[in-house]
């Protein structure tokens, strides 16, 4: 009882927490709120100083224009979904065992291998874009969503491995020993014991991989032409040489972020579920 109260803290601490949460809400939400307002305003109102928020300037026209061009946006969202799900799923399937092995199993030079894996991400994408383009174009796989997904896999996998490895390192070794005593093999220990208690880091890694693939711009620009265009390219279409149709761009951004938020809402329990609330109640 008193411990639970301690976790909440005294009046001073409660105030600090509430003020902190308010600041956090403003900091995160204010720009996003402005994005939503912008998507509902005519450009004329947006360039007024201060921006003219009178009711008659609000319109759904930005959304209807963007949706009228829905072929591009719809295809972009479909492509992005394929690319993101594909690369996220593979990154987890390949990354979780690798991270587990590098953290808990006697792999020779595990630290060196882990660092080497991370080092593949240290060269800026700009440097590998042209060689990568050459390889993929020789294979005839330019403008193919799956080849884009494979490229994203190579960006996400190392990060996924590192996120997961850090958590696997923190698992008390007693758990595995108990499992071994019970006769569980390494696979069984990994599958039935380690993975279930690692849902928070797994979902953090999955969210990471998904969002990064969903939003990646530069390689999507280089490696696609028309058919495999992803959402970021479609959004960028609203910024031309002479004109940026800001309201429409923001409307497209709102539409394109919706699936990600929806996923976050669906998986929020996975993201929330903690070690402490889960199986390892202390």
């Amino acid at each position, binding site marked *: 009882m008193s411990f639970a109260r301690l976790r909440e803290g005294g009046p001073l601490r409660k105030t600090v927490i509430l003020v902190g949460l308010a600041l956090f809400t403003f900091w995160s939400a204010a720009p996003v709120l402005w994005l939503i307002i912008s998507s509902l305003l005519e450009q004329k109102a947006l360039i007024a100083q201060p921006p003219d928020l009178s009711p008659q300037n609000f319109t759904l026209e930005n959304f209807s224009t963007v949706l009228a061009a829905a072929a591009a946006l719809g295809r972009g969202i479909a492509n992005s979904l394929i690319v993101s799900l594909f690369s996220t799923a593979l990154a987890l399937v390949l990354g979780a065992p690798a991270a587990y092995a590098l953290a808990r199993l006697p792999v020779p030079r595990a630290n060196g291998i882990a660092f080497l894996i991370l080092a593949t991400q240290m060269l800026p994408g700009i440097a590998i874009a042209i060689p990568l383009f050459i390889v993929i174009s020789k294979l005839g796989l330019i403008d193919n969503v799956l080849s884009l997904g494979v490229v994203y896999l190579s960006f996400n996998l190392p990060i996924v491995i*590192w996120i997961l490895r850090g958590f696997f390192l923190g698992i008390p070794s007693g758990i595995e020993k108990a499992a071994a005593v019970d006769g569980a093999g390494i696979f069984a220990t990994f599958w039935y014991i380690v993975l279930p208690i690692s849902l928070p880091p797994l979902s953090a890694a999955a969210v990471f991989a998904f969002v990064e693939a969903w939003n990646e711009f530069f390689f999507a620009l280089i490696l696609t032409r028309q058919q495999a265009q992803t959402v970021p390219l479609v959004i960028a279409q609203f910024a031309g040489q002479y004109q940026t149709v800001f309201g429409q761009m923001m409307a497209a951004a709102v539409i394109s972020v919706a699936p990600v938020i929806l996923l976050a*809402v669906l998986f929020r329990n996975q*993201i929330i579920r903690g070690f402490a609330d889960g199986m390892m109640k202390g």
Partner: protein
Amino acid sequence: MISTFEQRRRRTGLFFVAPALIVLAAILFYPIVDSILLALQRVQLAGGAVTQEWAGFGNFERLFTDAVFWKAARNTAYFSVMEVVLVTLLSLGVALLLNHPFGRSGFFRILLIVPWALAPVANAVLWKWILNANYGVLNGMLKSLGVIGNNQVWLGTPLSALNFLLIVDVWKSVPFVALLMLAGLQRVPQSLYRAAYMDGAGPWRSFLHVTLPTMRGVIAIAIVLQTIWSLRVFDLVFVLTRGGPADATVLLNFLAYRVTFNFLDLGYGAAIANVIFALTFLLAAAYVWLLWPREPKGAR
């Protein structure tokens, strides 16, 4: 018996790691090696045909006398250090807030994800409009609150422009790192806090002696990853300032882009990229060495 068990564990370990390594090597080995070789060549497309010749370390020598490169290096050093410090501290703060009973509502977790989930293209353009010196909403808001009398050109002076790039990038980067730290916080066993409470430790001491040590690995990962990302910042510079005014916001990765894709000076661009690689490598290695929790030998 024990040695066979150990052998089996080792074999399984290799079997677990191999697929990931093979996939990474298949995709990235050639481009990475090629870009390192490219840095040792003089490659030019413009004007004539594609020409390519070995230049030894000529590109790297050129870097030493290139004032823009040094300016970019200084900008990047400032940007990167500030970014890592700010993102780590703010993310830890946000994670602590959201781990508190008041902050556990799903609303905050969704809110946490939104800035990061926004497409960077749209995000950069959004901030460009928010920060606009003439019709930006930041000026409008601060003016109506009486904080400023006249419109400020936020992206107009070198230091201010660089700092606003920093703020926007921190805004974009905090969510994921906070999520990572939140997941880490939730792994701190409640029993440890309870034990600390029994020992008479206050909130501050239990933070120092329970939370931080358990979080060490997560914080190390956050710092290493954020270092890598802060050295690769590109799209914000591209949309918000184009490196201006007068190269004040040119960061190394933007410079590598400009030299490679605008100047089509591929060898020199690759050399700059390799400098970024070397810098990142050294910094990451140092952080890992300094911060990584030393595991007791028996952990394996």
